[in-house]
């Protein structure tokens, strides 16, 4: 094959940040498909437009998702990427790997595909970038044999994802890695066989720092928290004071609820536990001295999504505190999300995310029909308008126009 020039992309091999162009070129040494990808991309850079055809439905036997079909718009010019599909492989919790596993991923991908990957897709999957239609089933068979499964795509439960959790973080309020693993396995059918109005994502973050961006990037956001008081180690506070750490200005003054008091004389920090909203700021700044409480669990928030169609939504609080225990197999969580999905499946329109369904039909209706109790923690503030729906059957209608018998009197 003659060497084709890529002057625009070559510019992006300069500079300090690692270069994706270098990576495509490395893959191109072994893969004609990657070599052609480089050519198409160079053209896109010159023409300032993409060259991939619309859509494409491909997959494996037994599943309704997991593979994203893609075709180049000039297959005669670029026969090696006429088909250039993506396979999503479900990543291990927390993106932890041993090198044996990573090498297996690489060897199988060298055998079947372009040699290009994304580590990782935004939802969490290992992205195998570029293969032919005829290779999809053999790819799945080989990866399956090696202990991997596909991730999600389409109107299903997408691949779940979590933060590093208790694997390496002192802030973790529940076992995010185990929750992610256990709950993914529980809902394999919902993940592999699209059956819902639209996509649904779950992300598990161990604390309010939300290192997976669960509140903005998942329909079901599980954010670790605690219910009792912050734990303060006064000796450690004194050590921070000794190092002239600005406890008053950097920590106390920035507390959103002003529930911290620092006594400069005694070098003691105190908290009014019931006023703390567990934002994690003080813990972040003084991790050696301040810890989460002992009674740990998670807040369940629902409805997060990006722009299309009705603006971006953040998830909002549905269950303020929920135990997330390995011992009881995350039963309360599983039970609650089953009710939530069932309601959405029943009420959601085609391509309507659950946040939009709740917005359209009302949070009150959603809570009533999923049997989740309404509590003040679910709102920043109560409604300002008086347009309230009442359940007519619960009102006393005897002797009123509503019972049909006294209509004449009412008209007088």
């Amino acid at each position: 094959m003659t060497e084709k020039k890529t002057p625009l992309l070559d510019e992006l091999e300069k500079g300090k940040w690692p270069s994706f162009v270098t990576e495509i070129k490395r893959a191109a040494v072994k893969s004609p498909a990657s070599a052609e990808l480089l050519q198409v991309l160079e053209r896109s850079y010159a023409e300032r437009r993409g060259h991939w055809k619309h859509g494409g439905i491909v997959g494996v036997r037994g599943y309704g998702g997991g593979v994203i079909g893609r075709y180049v718009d000039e297959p005669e010019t670029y026969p090696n990427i006429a088909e250039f599909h993506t396979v999503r492989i479900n990543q291990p919790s927390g993106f932890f790997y041993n090198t044996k596993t990573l090498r297996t991923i690489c060897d199988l991908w060298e055998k079947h595909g372009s040699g290009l990957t994304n580590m990782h897709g935004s939802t969490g999957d290992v992205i195998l970038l570029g293969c032919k239609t005829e290779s999809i089933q053999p790819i799945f068979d080989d990866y399956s044999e090696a202990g991997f499964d596909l991730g999600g795509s389409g109107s299903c439960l997408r691949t779940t994802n979590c933060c590093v959790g208790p694997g390496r973080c002192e802030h973790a309020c529940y076992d995010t890695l185990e929750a992610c693993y256990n709950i993914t396995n529980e809902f394999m059918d919902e993940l592999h066989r699209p059956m819902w109005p639209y996509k649904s994502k779950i992300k598990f973050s161990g604390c309010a720092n939300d290192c997976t961006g669960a509140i903005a990037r998942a329909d079901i956001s599980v954010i670790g928290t605690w219910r009792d008081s912050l734990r303060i180690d006064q000796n450690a506070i004194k050590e921070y004071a000794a190092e002239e750490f600005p406890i008053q200005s950097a920590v106390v003054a920035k507390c959103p609820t002003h529930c911290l008091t620092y006594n400069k004389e005694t070098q003691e920090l105190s908290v009014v536990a019931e006023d703390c909203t567990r934002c994690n700021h003080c813990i972040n700044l003084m991790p050696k001295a301040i810890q989460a409480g002992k009674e740990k669990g998670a807040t369940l928030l629902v409805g997060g999504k990006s722009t299309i169609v009705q603006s971006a939504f953040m998830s909002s609080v549905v269950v303020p505190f929920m135990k997330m225990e390995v011992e009881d197999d995350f039963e309360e969580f599983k039970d609650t999300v089953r009710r939530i999905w069932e309601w959405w499946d029943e009420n959601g329109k085609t391509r309507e995310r659950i946040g939009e369904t709740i917005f359209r039909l009302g949070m009150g209706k959603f809570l009533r029909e999923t049997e989740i109790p309404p509590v003040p923690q679910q709102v920043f503030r109560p409604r300002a308008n008086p347009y309230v729906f009442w359940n007519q059957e619960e009102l006393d209608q005897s002797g009123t126009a509503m019972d049909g018998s006294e209509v004449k009197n009412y008209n007088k």
Partner: protein
Amino acid sequence: MAAKLDQGPPNYKEMLPPVILENYGKWKYHEIPRPGVLKHVSETGATMHSVRVASPRLVSIDFVRDLCVIADEYCEGFLRFTTRNNVEFLVGDEAKLNPLLAELEAKGYCVGGTGASISNIIHTQGWVHCHTPATDASGVVKAVMDDLYEYFDSMKLPAKLKMGLACCLNMCGSTHCSDIGIVGVHRTPPRIDHDKIRKGTEIPSLVASCPTGAIRPDPKNKSVIVNNDKCMYCGNCYTMSPAMEIYDAKNDGIAILIGGKVSNARSAPSFSRMVIPFLPNNAPRWPETTKAIRDIIELWIANAHKGERLGEWVERIGWERFFSLSGLPFSDMLIDDYIFARETFRTGAAFKY
């Protein structure tokens, strides 16, 4: 042999290095001894160092194999990736930390992305693999991170700064909730291919896909009509139907949004807000985009309090002050006119001139 169905992901427990298995859930605190290096200390007294290395996310299998060689030599064969697509080498044996750092430096890896730094940019497929982009992802990210590299391997910012890039308004990833969001935008309505619509488009779904109700059925033609006055070029109709092609090389480009965050620390999570409605797709280096982002970041560095995220700074000084300080032109394009617009108007008389 038939594939095993529904076996789920590999068990993470087999992926954890010994030091984590022994100290799982027992971590007491952590420190950042130098940019790119985290030191975690356990209740047992054990320590582990994590060395964070930049990745372009779009990588070859040989990149991954290179990582494996390093992990085998210094980390007992274990490593992880972060939620921002960086790589972390997990070092249980402290004696191996400095040799690892020396090797990474010798091989040209970029160590950084911790603390008050600019870490990796969460980004999408762009012209590499998607059919709906209005800009590229990998190229813009490379250009921006090259330009701002000094903030990746240091920790001299007022607070951490997170960036997200999405190549269209689907906004895959974290653009809507990042300190700085880079979004590919169109500026011209779709071109309808009536033949294609007749051949295989579900017209009701296509009509329903439009946020502004700009598309209506045209039964006479067995097609649809687009009211160009109501179209704001989101491209969602093209997602639903190949007959609604919308890319326009001359008019596609990038919008810049700022001030979003997901953490709850101090202030509630917030969306990023548009401050620049359009910058051109000037490949391969996108100089207008890199300059605009650098200017915003330098303004924040010069004016923010210590510990103040970009959005927290702007909310404190007021958006009107941000525009006067930055010199960015304010236009009606930045005033919301969609569903939740009203709550963004200033319903008070307190503001700065």
